[in-house]
């Protein structure tokens, strides 16, 4: 197990950035599939504590206890069993602070610093669902029954209430708004995610993925057979139908992923009915799920359904149009 090096922190420029002696490899587990031989260089971390609302910032709510910071592999101490998906997207550090009101209701604020805005956007899409309502916070936010997530630049903010009372949910909103005002960052949705047909995001929410854990959680078929990729975007074009578009770091890597997937689905005993043609294959699993795969202009697209996928040509046309229109920026 890699151990975090002893960390001394130096505050710079009115509390916005911290420099941590050590290396990127010391502090930030590389997301799977990413180059792991980055040259050693000082890691500049955000001063997450400066994003926390202070006493008096949010009327009625005050910090309760001190803030806790977890960096690199320390995340496993905080969320043992749940840390892997953060690492898959690219995790740097998190600060956790509780707030309390006069009725002793408690809220928990977590501000995660991810490796970049795409990672923050990705974990935001992973943690949110279409059940919630849009919240105009940061670069995108969503309020669900008792908690709220928003992303802003490389930061992901989660505020959790401990019940669904109007007082708690109101506190969740106000704490989130106060954090939003304190974060001086901006980010853009990754272009690959932006290319996905927006009207398909409604059923289950658009998901931006950076590794197999995210993929496995999208659909049980990927627990039986996975596909390698560097980034992916997914959504539901119709009830019971999931579309996933993946790509490698290069076109060659995408083609290799396709041929590996062909081998995997054709030889995996959990699948049957395997058929292949030029740049395409299809199969079904023992639970009655159907999967079709096609190479589309440097991307690998997958369509998964709970019933036969006949009549899906319209979906394929939309995907072809969305991901063939213009050159995609390099990863």
């Amino acid at each position, binding site marked *: 197990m890699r151990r975090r090096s002893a960390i001394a922190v130096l505050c710079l420029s009115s509390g916005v950035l911290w420099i941590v002696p050590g290396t990127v490899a010391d502090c930030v587990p590389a997301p799977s599939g990413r180059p792991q031989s980055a040259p050693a260089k000082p890691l500049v971390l955000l001063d997450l504590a400066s994003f926390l609302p202070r006493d008096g910032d949010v009327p009625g709510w005050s910090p309760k206890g001190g803030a806790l910071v977890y960096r690199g592999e320390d995340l496993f101490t905080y969320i043992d069993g749940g840390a892997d998906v953060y690492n898959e997207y690219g995790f740097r550090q998190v600060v956790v602070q509780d707030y309390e009101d006069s009725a002793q209701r408690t809220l*928990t604020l977590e501000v995660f610093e991810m490796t970049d805005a795409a990672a923050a956007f990705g974990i935001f899409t992973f*943690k949110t669902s279409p059940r919630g309502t849009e919240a105009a916070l940061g670069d995108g936010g969503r309020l669900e*029954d008792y908690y709220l997530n928003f992303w802003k630049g490389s930061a992901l903010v989660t505020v959790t209430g401990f019940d669904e009372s109007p007082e708690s949910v109101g506190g969740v909103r106000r704490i989130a708004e106060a954090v939003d005002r304190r974060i001086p960052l901006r980010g853009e949705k990754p272009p690959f995610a932006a290319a996905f047909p927006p009207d398909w995001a409604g059923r289950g929410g658009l998901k931006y993925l950076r590794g197999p854990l995210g993929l496995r959680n999208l659909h049980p078929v990927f627990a039986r057979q996975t596909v390698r990729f560097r980034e992916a975007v997914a959504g539901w074009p119709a009830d019971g139908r999931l579309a996933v578009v993946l790509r490698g770091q290069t076109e060659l890597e995408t083609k290799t992923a396709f041929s590996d997937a062909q081998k995997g689905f054709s030889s*995996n005993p959990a699948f049957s009915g395997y058929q292949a043609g030029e740049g395409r294959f299809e199969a079904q699993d023992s639970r009655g799920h159907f999967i079709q795969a096609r190479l589309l202009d440097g991307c690998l697209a997958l369509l998964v359904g709970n019933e036969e996928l006949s009549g899906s040509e319209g979906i394929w046309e939309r995907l072809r149009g969305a991901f063939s229109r213009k050159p995609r920026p390099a990863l």
Partner: protein
Amino acid sequence: MPKKIGRREFMARGVRAGLATVLANDFLATVRGGLWAAPAADAPDIAVATGGDYGAAAFRAVEAAGGMARFIKKGARVALLPNVQSRHPGTYTNPEIFRAVIKMCREAGAGEVAALSLLTQQHWDGAGLARVAQDEGVAVKLIPAEEVEYKAVPVPGSAVFREAMVPNEFFNYDAYINLPITKDHIGTRFTGTLKNHMGLNSRASNRFFHKPNWKTDPADIEHLEVCIVDLNTIFKPALNVVDATEIITTNGPMGPGELVKPMKVIAGLDRVAIDAYCVTLLGLKPRDILSIQKASERKLGELDLKKVKVQEVRG
């Protein structure tokens, strides 16, 4: 990377492992506090109590399963194993269920009752279980991570996981009660009675469960689930009392996630049957979860709910 060991250490490990075998077999086979007798003919395999008072539901579930005295003998030293992994709603064992189980152990005449945990005081404080333990006079034994705090226990007949590292403290008790919450889990899609046993294996040893490619290689993904089953073969809870009152169905195990409220407490001995029942509360089927399927194949319990006697109680 595997650590190389010299002959001297190899011999020492062998002696330790042999000793552990004796201790483990002695403890596991003749545990005094747990009741291993055949259940009464009319006892259900699992009892399910539904209701908004979760402490009362725990009492009713255990009562319907035969009563705590059926599972814990008078004077037994009992260890409790709740889940305090996170403090977000629907991610940790409800404090009132924890309290109810403590009270039932005492009413059944248990001697010492304590809670064991590999996690930290912050986890116990955050989940609200530290306060209950304090109220009820129950010690919370936080097990340090150092290797010296654990005893090597061979896993006879294991598929892949050869040796568990069980807290020394565990061997100070006659019986333990498994007290998980059932919920979503990003790695295994579901966690419940079987997976909660990772709380009785050192965190360093639990890392063996995750092979380097456990997220990408189907064989390595299966390795994780098989390890969970292997681990379960060396433990026999005196009773499982499972919190399915308010549980997350997404973003597990940490949350926050979509919260559903089945308002159920499940009690029984059959870990596989209980997990098979609980997985349906998350909209999944028992065979969707590899650890349940593998545990059934290893005869740890019954996966087919049609063959399980479930007694539902309300009120």
